[in-house]
């Protein structure tokens, strides 16, 4: 009996022994989610400058690009902090899928690596990793989400035990693990006393006892020991400031959680009031896109630097995911539509052999010229980086389901044996 979701210890590592896949050594994953569809041509896959004015419309990047620490690899000018860290980063520029019509659908695809089947609800990458590796420390959950709950982020057929606990705001902590303000220590003790006679009648090894066990764990977790992981005041002001605003503070929370033993943290960058529509830069949404990019840049570079400083960069894989990219052409009001056939997702740290950029697109970032990476391949890369066999099967009840839909890790990025 594992009353605690994350009391699964090391998870199911049976596949590790005879692994023949290129094996990574990452222990944790921080998955930054840019909901809406990050425009690759305006960020990590810059091309010649375009023009979005209706009078002189020309397809191309919206911003000039700059050099990075990796010779020959350029990024947009609003990623100047991240540019310095590109030796620890790989912008995978050749991610491809065929779903562009709807955000939720593509979000599901990128999180699960699968198309909808109607027969199986596939688990998200976070749940798969939680399932396979468990938490690194039994006193914390394996999978925490900083963002809104949805089915794409859920455990699917793996079941609630591999689900996330979530928070939408770094200041309030996760629902269920944050005591209401008026519940003082005195009241906690009183509740404990009141609960005692109700628990006394519960026979051991019964369904009720299993629940009671889970309850004790839950109440313990709602205590100060777990909650302090969310207290950013414990960090120096220099560290806090290096991450930037609320999104950066979420990334800092993620680092603290990883440090505490959480295996997978998904952090959503959903502060859509910066430019109205967030990363979904249709129409006027593009006008202030640079503010979003700058915010991402500060937080991402801050996170990488901080992981490096704390000696955690090599064992923490940072992923920047998004549901699709955007075309080089501008729409009626100067914004951009959706493009799934070629877009960028970013990997950093995690002990991978980074090269700044992987895969090439054509002069307008529309077609993939070399090294296409499918969603299953991308998933396989993340799994392999965390030492999980990307060819193994998961079990949906009695039915084996391959952990990825035939994905192959990007061999060039894998550490040499």
């Amino acid at each position: 009996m594992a009353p605690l979701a994350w009391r699964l210890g090391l998870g199911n590592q049976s596949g590790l022994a005879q692994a023949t896949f290129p094996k990574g050594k990452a222990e944790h994953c921080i998955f930054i989610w840019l909901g809406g569809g990050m425009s690759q041509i305006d960020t990590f896959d810059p091309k010649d400058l375009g023009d979005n004015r209706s009078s002189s419309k020309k397809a191309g990047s919206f911003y000039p690009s700059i050099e990075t620490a990796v010779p020959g690899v350029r990024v947009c000018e609003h990623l100047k902090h991240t540019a310095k860290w590109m030796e620890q980063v790989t912008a995978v520029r050749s991610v491809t899928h065929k779903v562009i019509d709807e955000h939720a659908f593509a979000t599901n695809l990128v999180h699960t690596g699968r198309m909808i089947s109607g027969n199986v609800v596939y688990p998200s990458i976070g749940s798969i990793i939680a399932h396979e590796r468990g938490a690194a420390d039994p006193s914390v959950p394996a999978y925490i989400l900083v963002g809104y709950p949805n089915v794409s982020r859920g455990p699917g057929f793996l079941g609630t035990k591999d689900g996330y606990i979530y928070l939408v705001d770094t200041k309030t902590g996760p629902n269920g693990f944050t005591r209401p303000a008026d519940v003082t220590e005195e009241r906690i003790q009183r509740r404990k006393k009141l609960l005692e006679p109700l628990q006394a009648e519960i026979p051991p090894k019964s369904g009720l006892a299993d629940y009671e066990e889970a309850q004790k764990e839950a109440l313990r977790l709602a205590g100060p020991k777990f909650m302090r992981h969310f207290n950013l005041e414990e960090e120096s002001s220099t560290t806090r400031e290096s991450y930037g605003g609320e999104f950066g503070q979420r990334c800092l929370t993620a680092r603290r959680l990883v440090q505490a033993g959480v295996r997978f943290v998904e952090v959503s960058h959903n502060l859509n009031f910066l430019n109205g529509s967030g990363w979904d830069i249709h129409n006027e949404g593009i006008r202030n896109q640079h503010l979003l990019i700058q915010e991402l840049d500060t937080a991402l570079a801050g996170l990488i630097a901080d992981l490096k400083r704390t000696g955690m960069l090599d064992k923490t894989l940072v992923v920047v995911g998004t549901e699709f990219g955007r075309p080089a052409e501008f729409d009626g009001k100067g914004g951009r539509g959706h493009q799934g056939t070629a877009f960028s997702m970013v990997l950093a740290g995690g002990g991978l052999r980074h090269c700044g950029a992987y895969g090439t697109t054509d002069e307008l970032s529309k077609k993939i010229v070399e090294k296409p990476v499918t969603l299953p391949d991308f998933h396989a890369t993340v799994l392999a980086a965390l030492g999980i066999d990307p060819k193994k099967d998961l079990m949906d009840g009695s039915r084996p389901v391959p952990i990825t839909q035939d994905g192959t890790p990007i061999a060039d990025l894998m550490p040499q044996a």
Partner: protein
Amino acid sequence: MKSPTIRLSQITPALLLASILPLATAATLQKGAEPSTNPTPTNDAAGNDVASTLPPPQPLLPKLTEPKVSSAPPVDRATLSPGKIRLELCFKGLSEKNTWPTTHPVADEVHEAAAFGFFELPHLYVDTGVRADRPNPLFVRASAIVNIPAGRHRFLLRGRGASCLFVDGKPILTTPFPPPESDNRPVTVQNQFLDLGPTFRFAPPGNRESWCEVEIESGEHLVILETIIGGVRGKGHNRPELGETVAAFSPEGSYDWKILTPEKTEIPYTDAGWEKYREQTENELAASNAKHRAEARNQSSEYWARRRKHATEWLSSTKEEPVPALPPNTPSLNPIDHFIGAKIAAFASQLSEAKSGSIDFYTQIQPILEARCRDCHQGGKAKGGLRLDNLATLLKGAKSGEPVLVPSAPEKSGLFTRTKSTDPDEVMPPKGDRLTPKESALLETWIKEGAHWPEFPPLPTEYTALCSDLEFLRRVTLDTVGVVPTPAEIEAFQKDTNPNRRAKVVDRLLADPRSADHWMGYWQDVLAENPNILNPTLNNSGPFRWWIQESLLDQKPLDLMVTELIRMKGSERFGGPAGFGVASQNDVPMAAKGTIVSAAFLGVEMKCARCHDAPAHSYKQEQLFQLAAQLGAQPIKVPSTSSVPMDKLHSGGRKPLIEVTLKPDTLVQPTWPFSDFVKDNVADSVAEQPEDPRDRLASLITAPENERFAQVMVNRIWARLMGRGIVEPVADWERGTPTHPELLRWLGRELVRSGYQTTHITKLILNSHAYQRASIKARREVNPLYTTPIPRRLTAEQIVDSLFTATEKPFRTEEASLDIDGIRDLSTSISLGQPRKAWMLTSTSNERDRPSLSLPRIQAVTDVLSAFGWRGSRQDPSSIRDHAPNSLQPAVLSNGIMGTWLTTLTDDHGITALALKKQPLNQLLDSLFLKLLTRLPSDVERKTYTEVLAPGYEDRFSSPKPAATPVEPRRPAYYVSWSNHLDPDATIVRQKQEAEARKGDPVTPWLETSWRLRLEDVVWTLLNAPEFVFTP
């Protein structure tokens, strides 16, 4: 503005608005909240003596910008009943453009209504009583004779669709057609909503409004309200919703508004007045809808009478299942107990027989069979047709007729001789190591001693006595209506001295409409009801929850319910079974539906067959596609995306586990794939329209000849009430064997005999001794002999609904919609209404991660539901919920947002009222325990709880300080919807709502703080007691 008798001239809108709405000037208000052609009177924005500047009161013709008939609708006063509104719905003659018709549309349907306050129309029911869509746009005309006193009154018209109000043939007010779709309309336009007095009800989201002042003579006036709902939106349509279509008036000299009504009773048009009116009208609508359904159903009563007759004939032409004699000393309340008792007695004797030999089957023989034989001899594809999973199949022998097991004669038993054979074609196992001499010897001895194979490993065979009355009441109430019993129900039951009081409770509960709620979540899971309130994407279906609910409310016979589902008629987007037929982004929706139908009604699991033949199931992909073609009523071509390429199958070198025998691009014809259950030709006489593939399919599934259907259905009911199916898993019978085949057959025939009434089966089970026995709390698993129940974990919905029921805290969430003002196309957004029960909730669908699209109160409740195994999104069907405990469950109850609402004593909390009652503490404790746990406190509990609550008990009352005078101007609460969610203000509004949800309602001022906090701790404890989430 102090006196209600103030003259209207002194409370001109401009005055009111200038004092109440500093943000909006009267001038901007006159433009209306949204693009409109409000015929508002010209006011003096400075608020001077307006009366003198008002235009002449009669007539106030609206400025009509759209083509509009100039004549009043020709309503014949003779058709109007006194005191009633004649409500006409007109389909024909309407333009596909958003314009008023040029001639007066004629009524296609006529209904009655009580007042000019409309929020929902009576549903249209077609076929056997399933909800259907009316044409869109729909023209609605409401006419009545209304008594209006003389005076210069203010009139108000609001509505979602374009509308027009006529008094005595003169149009006095109009509202415009809905605005175009938008996602970034400024939130602050809501500042311009009309505010026409201190008790005036602000317009709810998504209504246009206008007002005017009219001098009227005393007496009867003909009032007509016309509105066009739905309408065109780009290439699609608006949802055909009324919003809050209201005609109201404020009599001269008064601030207050009333809904116009031909009735004598006044209906105040205030927030409270509307709420009351709406609730009453909803109940009336529900009753009239039920009546209309019944009328529709009656249209096909002849056919269904024929089906009943057919079932009766079938019953009499087939062998009855005899009810076994009751073994001695077996408690029994009805025939179920005979079957259960006989099984227990038989098993007890098997056990004692088995003890006579030297071999123990379960520890010595079964491991050999499992290790050496089971791989090939299991499931529907067992080699030689021989399954080695129970004694009966072994005794029956192989398909070839070869005897496999002859008790006491190992030399005649293939099971033994084959293991010794030297013939390589004969020997078993055919590959791998031979049995060791020790294993052979064990087998030989076991057979020689008589091959004792008790049906189960040793199990307790002792019964418990009946549970206590209160335990029974809590258990049976949870199992029927899905919530804990109320204090009134407890009291009535305890007072009843009738020896049949338990049976009476069962009858009462099964007739209670709440019993529909209890089965909702179950069918939503099993049938994968998966609507999305925003953009249907992830294998979404329509919201056919409303059809499920109406079926359960009507206690529809199961065969009819299944037939309706498979016919998939009625409304797709608004709650008819057609919604079941939708599977968005699915390459073969009908194949997905096929897996649902086969598992739900026939216990045939075909998920694997969606793309390939499965190793563990005998049904092939072709059979699923035959079923899919029947459901689609046309041949289906297998797409390559529904297959597994052969090269992939064979990659890796090893023999693939799965096979693909149905090639992509094959055209599969509609064919009944389960001729082993019932022959296809049965449909010729049973189906209503045998030439229709869907009707054929429905009849073949539900015909009495198909005994599998009735048995699968009774097994589902049984499993839900008894904690374990007679066959497990309930949705995949190929993997299980019935523990009580005779009982299963008997119950199946009872279902047929009752006319497929599930309540008949439920009643039999609830009235059995087996159900009513005391539970043994120390056990985790249900004894398959059903000697004793165990505490069963409640479902997520039972937990949430019980928490609200027990505490009487109102279940208050947002409307389940992200388009509450109805400006999106009906194909992209729907509303699931105002949830009253857990099952009405749904995924909050915030895939975009936009704070402005969050629904914080719904989220707080769905967090609890999800932790306990509910799914907000049901991409696939599920018959078994995940019930394993995890720490998120107690966590979200004890410290989560919803938990905090329930354990904070507010004015509207039921425990607050209880605590304010003058009674001794002892009585309060009794009431608390009864109300929350349906039992009295134990002595220890009483002592502990008294210690906590006694101090300050007598002084627990507190007088609230006089409420501070509100300094904020009166203003409608801002709302966020799709239409404005990209406005940065929307995020701020939503985050404020999130913070408010987290904080909960203000605590009651009537209880002294320190004592209240202690009582809150007591409430917290009782709600968080593990026993709360289990049946007793």
